[in-house]
């Protein structure tokens, strides 16, 4: 069995007694079998995490596409399955979202980053995650000494449950399909808006306070953070749906003076960013952000040759 195919290589780490499988996307000139990364001092790797329970390729193989394109620009890129997910060993924690929302995977990812830095002679790693993966990425930024930046794709900052009440699921489906349902849904939104005003625009009861604390500690340190936002149902542009708390404004206000937070809204895509438009926009924003935060001669040359692909 070949462990490499073109610029891809299957790799594994053992952590917490579980073997975790991943894929390494080699940048040009980094050939298999040779000591890696010795030629460049400022090597920054990019690590993609599972979006929720999905395997490391993600929906529409979008993570494969992003990792491949970043590797072509000179960033060694990695995609790993966390314990219990994809090909990796271990049990899926239950309830899974409670575990993720409390930062349960952060120490495993932190340990993984440490090994990537050692093995690939990296100066540090940028952690990227989508949805629940973004939650883990942010927590990791708070605990890992070798984490140099965080890419948060459509993160959420409230407590979520593995199972939504059936009646709520049915009501959402109904309101998304029928005109009468739409009217009821709009009334509901207005009532929530009223509640928001009455609360004085304070954090909702289901806010993920540990995660927000992590943000408040991390962002003011000047750690580069790229936050990519996708359009949400019934929302106009980057603003939240009527009646929903504006977490994005809250985050920006609490990021501190020295923050290096960049927020980009990607119009016309969806939460997974897996459609052609979303894939391309994420790739473009990420490449440019990485290039501005982690400049290097080699990568500038790579971009000059390959362009922003």
């Amino acid at each position: 069995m070949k462990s490499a195919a073109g610029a891809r290589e299957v790799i594994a780490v053992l952590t917490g007694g579980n073997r975790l499988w991943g894929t390494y996307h080699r940048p040009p000139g980094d050939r298999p079998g040779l000591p890696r990364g010795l030629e460049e001092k400022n090597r920054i790797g990019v690590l993609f995490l599972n979006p929720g329970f999905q395997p490391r390729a993600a929906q529409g193989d979008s993570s494969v596409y992003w990792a491949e394109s970043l590797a072509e620009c000179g960033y060694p890129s990695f995609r790993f399955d966390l314990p219990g997910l994809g090909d990796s060993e271990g049990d899926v924690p239950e309830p899974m979202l409670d575990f993720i929302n409390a930062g349960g995977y952060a120490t495993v990812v932190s340990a993984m980053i440490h090994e990537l830095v050692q093995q690939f002679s990296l100066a540090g790693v940028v952690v990227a995650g989508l949805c629940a993966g973004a939650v883990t990425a942010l927590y990791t930024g708070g605990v890992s000494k070798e984490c140099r930046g965080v890419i948060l794709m459509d993160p959420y900052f409230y407590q979520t449950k593995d199972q939504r009440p059936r009646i709520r699921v049915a009501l959402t489906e109904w309101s998304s399909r029928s005109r009468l349902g739409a009217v009821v849904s709009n009334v509901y939104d207005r009532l929530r808006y009223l509640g928001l005003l009455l609360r004085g625009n304070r954090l909702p009861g289901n806010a993920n306070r540990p995660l927000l604390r992590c943000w408040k500690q991390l962002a003011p340190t000047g750690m580069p953070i790229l936050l990519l936002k996708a359009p949400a149902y019934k929302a106009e542009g980057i603003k939240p749906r009527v009646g929903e708390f504006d977490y994005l404004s809250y985050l920006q206000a609490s990021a501190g003076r020295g923050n290096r937070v960049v927020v980009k809204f990607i119009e016309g895509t969806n939460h997974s960013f897996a459609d052609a438009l979303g894939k391309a926009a994420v790739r473009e924003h990420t490449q440019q952000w990485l290039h501005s935060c982690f400049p290097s001669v080699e990568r500038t040359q790579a971009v000059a040759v390959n362009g922003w692909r």
Partner: protein
Amino acid sequence: MALGDSRTKTEELIHLRWTFKQRSARVNTGKAQVAATQCHAGNHPAEEAGYFEVPGAHLYTVLHGVANPTARVLLVGSFASERHLSYIPWVRWARYLAARSVECLRFDYRGIGESTGVFEEMRFENWLEDVALLAQWLKERSPEAPVILHGLELGALLAGKVFETGVGDGLLLWAAPRTANHVLRATLLRRVALDNAFKYGGDRKSSEDYIKQLESGDFLEVGGYQWSSQLWQDSFQVELPANLGDEASAFPVHERPVRTVKEEKLGAPLIKGSSVGYEAINRDFSGLFDDNFAWIVQSQAPSQGEPH
């Protein structure tokens, strides 16, 4: 194409370098540490991931190895956009079998998941070839053991078609559709439902609008994959071979054991991506697994000669 013995010494060394020693037994508290020990570690030591070369691409494969297997099973998985939804139970099924001396090989089709290749250039013939080549490789492994083709959803069609050509000592079908178009159409309907959410009246598009786009020769993005017009057209022709729909009629024709498990017996999260959520991840599949494992053992027992 010698899967299993083509690893060079350099590649072995790389693999060894990628072995890490556990510091803590707890999943979320352990710190990984380098240890140049053996590469087979962890709870499933005989699992080996790698790439298998096929014309124009490399297939990502995971072998759930067994020392002296009673049988070998080629797991032929579901369609592109369904892959990530059925992944966890599919891996668990492979581990369940491997723990009971049935060697398994999982893989990603060309152009999908971890495999290389460009999805929009793929045809069903390419994926049929993937199945045939891997089945052949499994058959050639030592020590000799019967090879069962086992397909899920679209994979059931592909496994059935390869089985029809005489490949495999048994066939296990889970949720086999009548044609590949049934799978594509169900996937397309989920995209249509998402696109139409919170749209009303004239703002909504029908599935026929999307199908017209495909029939006019344009690509259509569904679940992150670009469907070609050719893929859609071909999907009508990819049918479950005659007599494979039910076990009783299959045996006299093919003279090898066949089992079909209907869709309603499987349920989410092995199929029907739309209803899968976090709550279904740890669903108990022991009944399904026990039942099908028993069939695999019985069907390949030396005295077998009748359909089960």
